């Protein structure tokens, strides 16, 4: 090969190398663009997944026999996704938000509030315990110290942890701790699971017993209820608030509060309660409209219309309540002076309609 030809061959090689480099550069740029598009689509997908997950929180019956609607709220200092579950064995005849009666025992709303999201698995001292995530075993921790008086108090208070794995007969270790440099006491319960000793009996709680974040002024009701898995829990709903407003004011039968005996952030509790009531209000408004149509439809038999009218009247009374506490109290109270609780009335009406082969309330 002559020298000139060799130089031309070298030129070809240079051009090929340069061309390859340009090609590589352009391919790299294109890949980068497509990756960012894919990343944007993935981000959209994640957002959609979050939306879907949020949507799942609205689905009743997705994971358990839920009958109360869920609510997603953003509360001060935390973000809660409340999944309200009604632990009932049979739901065929029930409105969407009421449990069945449990035989001769006092009936309460067996609302198991699952904390769908938590900032950390460990609940710090004084936190509001709304419930326990089914995948995480929360334990209220104590520093282990306790005075004689606090220990005595601990034996007098039963606490409820709405944990799906807690069974009747599980050992509940109650400990009381005096917070350092305060007069406040933490009462905690730890369920170890599987042990044979029974849950502590609940006598009255001494008045003016201070618990961190909650002043227990009086015991309003001690109730017992069954859950979907047949377990029986005993809950004490307490009412009261301290003068500084740090307490949690509840009403009897409110298992949201019963599950939060050791209470902490009041705004979080209030926020969750308000969100729950907001959702329930919308639902009962729809039920009221539906009942109103049914009670006056000539296609419905006369006796069914009368029975439906009772349910409609109860719903109308409920929906007229503007205060969240009043609404919950009417819905959850076991008995009100002068008549049955709204909750009981609705349940009775629903049962009656079903037995009479009438259209049901919800």
């Amino acid at each position, binding site marked *: 090969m002559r020298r000139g030809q060799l130089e031309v061959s070298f030129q070809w090689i240079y051009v090929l190398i340069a061309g390859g480099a340009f090609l590589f550069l*352009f391919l790299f740029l294109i890949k980068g663009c497509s990756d960012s598009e894919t990343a944007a689509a993935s981000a959209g997908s994640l957002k959609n997944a979050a939306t879907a997950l949020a949507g799942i929180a609205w689905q009743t019956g997705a994971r358990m026999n839920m009958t109360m609607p869920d609510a997603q709220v953003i509360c001060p200092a935390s973000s809660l996704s409340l999944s309200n579950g009604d632990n009932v064995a049979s739901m065929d005849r029930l409105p969407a938000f009421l449990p069945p009666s449990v035989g001769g025992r006092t009936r309460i709303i067996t609302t198991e509030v699952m904390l769908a999201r938590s900032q950390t698995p460990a609940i710090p001292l004084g936190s509001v315990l709304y419930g326990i995530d089914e995948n995480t075993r929360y334990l209220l921790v104590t520093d282990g110290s306790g005075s004689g008086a606090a220990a005595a108090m601990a034996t007098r208070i039963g606490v409820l942890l709405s944990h799906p794995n807690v069974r009747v007969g599980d050992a509940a270790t109650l400990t009381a701790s005096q917070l350092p440099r305060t007069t406040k006491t933490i009462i905690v319960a730890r369920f170890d699971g599987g042990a044979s000793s029974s849950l502590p009996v609940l006598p009255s709680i001494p008045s003016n017993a201070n618990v961190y974040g909650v002043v227990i002024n009086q015991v309003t009701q001690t109730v017992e209820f069954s859950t979907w898995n047949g377990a029986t829990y005993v809950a004490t709903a307490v009412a009261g608030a301290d003068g500084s407003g740090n307490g949690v004011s509840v009403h009897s039968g409110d298992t949201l509060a019963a599950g939060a005996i050791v209470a902490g952030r009041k705004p979080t509790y209030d926020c969750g309660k308000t969100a729950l009531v907001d959702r329930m209000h919308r639902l009962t408004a729809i039920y009221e409209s539906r009942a109103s149509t049914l009670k006056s439809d000539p296609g419905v038999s006369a006796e069914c219309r009368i029975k439906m009218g009772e349910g409609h009247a109860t719903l109308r009374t409920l929906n007229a309540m503007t205060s969240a506490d009043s609404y919950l109290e009417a819905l959850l109270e076991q008995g009100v002076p002068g008549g049955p609780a709204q909750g009981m009335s609705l349940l009775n009406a629903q049962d009656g309609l079903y037995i009479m082969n009438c259209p049901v309330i919800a």
Partner: protein
Amino acid sequence: MEPIIIVIVLAIIIGLVLLYYVRINAHEVKTDTANYQAKEDLAMLGRLTTLPELACPRSETVKTYCIDLLKAQAFASMMGDARSGPASKVYYNPVLGATNITLRWYDLAKPPGQMAQQLTIYSNLRDSTRVRTTTTYFTAFEPVNSTRQFAMLIVERQS
């Protein structure tokens, strides 16, 4: 002259490769987008089938993909109410999103021309030009006579 031709040829080859590569990636992005949209539609369907505001009574044998007509009408009224409608739409927006949800059911007891009835349950579509529609077969439960009718739930969502 030769180098110029070489560069031109190389540029053509590079251009073809780029074109091919871009087309492949565009196709992949479209496929991914379609998959994400399908998942969104499934999630929406999951919500609609279990929303207690619309779901059939639990005493009914048909428990899923069933909408109570009276509840649907009450829900639609709530959304359309001049006073509470806007607040209700804001409330349900995280769940139902920017969608139009229409229930169309067929009452076979009626004459042929009047069988089909339609109700817009929820209307929150912001831009009606880019819309994706999914149709799912449902049961429409009429509680007065306890009858079940064939229905379709049409969800139009922003594309």
